[in-house]
């Protein structure tokens, strides 16, 4: 499929183009934030994150964007897991460690902090019978195989798919291994229907006190013991304590913490039968350094539509304002305009320019919706505000 070229490039210095005399101007109040929107009320004048993008040049852009198919996923990501990991010493592995798989076909990986594990030197006890790992596996690989596949595993790694053993399994290493070696045994119970889930209450929080995660263990026949930690971007862990919210869901609030950025909820559940599941999912803590002003100015000219958006900034940095004009939310093509520049603390105004050619090219009529109005702190890579349905033109 081919398309006509329609682009123009203007490189200007100095003053913005002035609006012609026939421009229609009006001031409009944005729609109030609704559920799912991001909206800070109090800004800080200090940011603890390092600056990622310190570029000072102003870049303004608009383009016609096709709509993608489907509705996407609403709400935070729901992670599922049939997996758990246990950590033992080399001498413990030499005596045998107990694994539990709920179904045949589980994949086991073993890695040690030193030495080199020989896949042929492992044995397994299952149903009272000891066999070599190779005898109960239809796939047996070492680190060279995994690295060749692009999985850059430690040199000591061994992997096996157990088709001849399941349930309570004793795994023992009969080769040479230092007693004090740290060993990680990872079990992926791929065919099991025992699945733990974790879902953050939201993708992003301004206030750590509002951050929470819900974990579930569908079909559990008895109580599940949960342990967890919220892990910050710099690796610090904050132990979680769970409250039973009933209906098979456990919720937890993270302790107040600093370190804005991408965090992880890491949770381990153990059921009454000793089945273990590790599950993790990401969320973001954001320091509020910018917010939208509520009154925008709209100027319509034959050349297009300019929308001037006030932005309150607490910490200087590179900020972008971006929004999309769509045809009354019908899901067709949209025109996106974005502008990024370095802003000092205080109130600034960012003008988004939606060119007439693009509005026509996108098939937008006189009634348009300004949506996904977003303020982004590019300096510290955080989304500061998002208004999904900002206003109707």
């Amino acid at each position: 499929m081919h398309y006509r070229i329609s682009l123009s490039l203007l490189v200007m210095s100095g003053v913005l183009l002035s609006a012609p005399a026939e421009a229609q101007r009006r001031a409009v109040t944005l729609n109030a934030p609704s559920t799912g929107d991001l909206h800070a009320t109090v800004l800080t004048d200090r940011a603890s994150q390092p600056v990622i993008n310190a570029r000072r040049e102003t870049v303004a852009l608009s383009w016609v964007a096709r709509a993608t198919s489907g509705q996407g996923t609403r709400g935070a990501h729901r992670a599922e897991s049939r997996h758990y990991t246990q950590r033992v010493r080399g001498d413990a592995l030499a005596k045998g460690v107990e694994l539990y798989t709920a179904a045949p076909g589980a994949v086991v990986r073993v890695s040690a902090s030193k030495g080199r594990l020989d896949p042929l030197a492992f044995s397994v006890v299952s149903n009272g019978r000891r066999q070599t790992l190779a005898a109960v596996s239809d796939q047996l690989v070492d680190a060279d195989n995994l690295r060749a596949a692009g999985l850059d595993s430690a040199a000591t790694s061994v992997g096996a798919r157990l088709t001849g053993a399941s349930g309570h399994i004793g795994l023992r290493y009969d080769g040479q291994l230092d007693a004090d070696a740290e060993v990680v045994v990872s079990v992926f119970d791929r065919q099991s229907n025992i699945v733990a889930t974790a879902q953050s209450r939201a993708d992003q929080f301004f206030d750590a006190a509002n951050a929470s995660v819900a974990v579930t263990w569908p079909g559990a026949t008895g109580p599940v013991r949960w342990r967890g930690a919220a892990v910050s971007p710099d690796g610090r862990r904050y132990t979680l304590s769970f409250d039973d919210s009933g209906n098979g869901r456990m919720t937890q609030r993270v302790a107040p913490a600093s370190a804005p950025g991408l965090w992880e909820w890491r949770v381990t559940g153990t059921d009454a039968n000793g089945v273990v599941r590790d599950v993790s999912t990401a969320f973001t803590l954001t320091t509020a350094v910018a917010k939208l002003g509520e009154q925008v100015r709209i100027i319509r000219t034959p050349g297009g539509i300019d929308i001037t958006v006030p932005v309150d900034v607490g910490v200087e940095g590179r900020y972008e304002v971006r929004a999309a004009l769509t045809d009354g939310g019908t899901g067709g093509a949209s025109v996106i305009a974005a502008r990024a520049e370095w802003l000092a603390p205080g109130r600034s105004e960012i003008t988004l320019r939606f060119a007439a050619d693009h509005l026509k090219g996108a098939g937008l009529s006189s009634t348009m919706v300004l949506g996904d109005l977003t303020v982004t702190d590019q300096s510290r890579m955080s989304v500061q505000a998002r208004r999904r349905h900002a206003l109707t033109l």
Partner: protein
Amino acid sequence: MRKFTILLLAGLGLAATANANTGVAFVHGTGNPSDALNDYWQRPIVNSVRQGLPNSANYTVINCQFEEYMWRAGAAGCLAGQLQSFIQSRNITDLVVITHSNGANVMRWILSNPTWDGRYPGIINVTREVVAIAASSKGTPLANAVISGTVFEAALGWILGYANDAVRMQQTSWMAYYNAYWLYGTSGRPGLPRPMINIVGTDVETAFWDPDSYCGGYALNVGLEFTQNWLASCSDGFIDCSSQAGAGSASIFDGSFTNEPLSHNQSRRQCFGIDVVLRNRL
């Protein structure tokens, strides 16, 4: 006086005009190759694909630090610099960018965040389309598997495998966040300013008696048979088909042009006609 750049882009793709100077860029996946031409792609596929150019010398093979987060200077910054240099030095006016695996995420960062860096709009302006081979657009469960650990202990990637930011980024919950807030092109999000066409590999075959299993390296395919355990029934051994086709405007599955499935390793080599598919897109 303050200097700034205003760009108006057509959101629809470009058609090569009679006077276009077409070029192709090969963008690798996770890793920091110093010689991606010989180590990541290998010459046969590059030399075959560039024969589709009016001027077969108009090609470049990118070498960047894709073990970093996609927005970092060593990743998107490096990619932007090398693409800009290529465009300017060869006067490219019509660019096709071919990516493999995580390379699509880095290119999608540029397309989705055009104001991040003053170099990005000029690159987008001349880009006709991105052809994303085996893209990890929604991450991969394999990244979850190697960046794992018990609740109260440090991430054990250093034991289990990868411990770099790019793999950390490609965990499925992390990519879900980036797709929702920082990247365009996935379902329910605005489309990218340029078309992204996915090429999807659907399986791994390692039959020692089958010569096709040796294309791209038999040992590599053995490992991919094992990694496929973490993936859905449709995968190339590293990335689920749903992730490979998770962003962009269209997807070409390997079955549409070959009887042999393309594994994650084979899709960056001259295997089963993928080079012809790429060549024809130029």
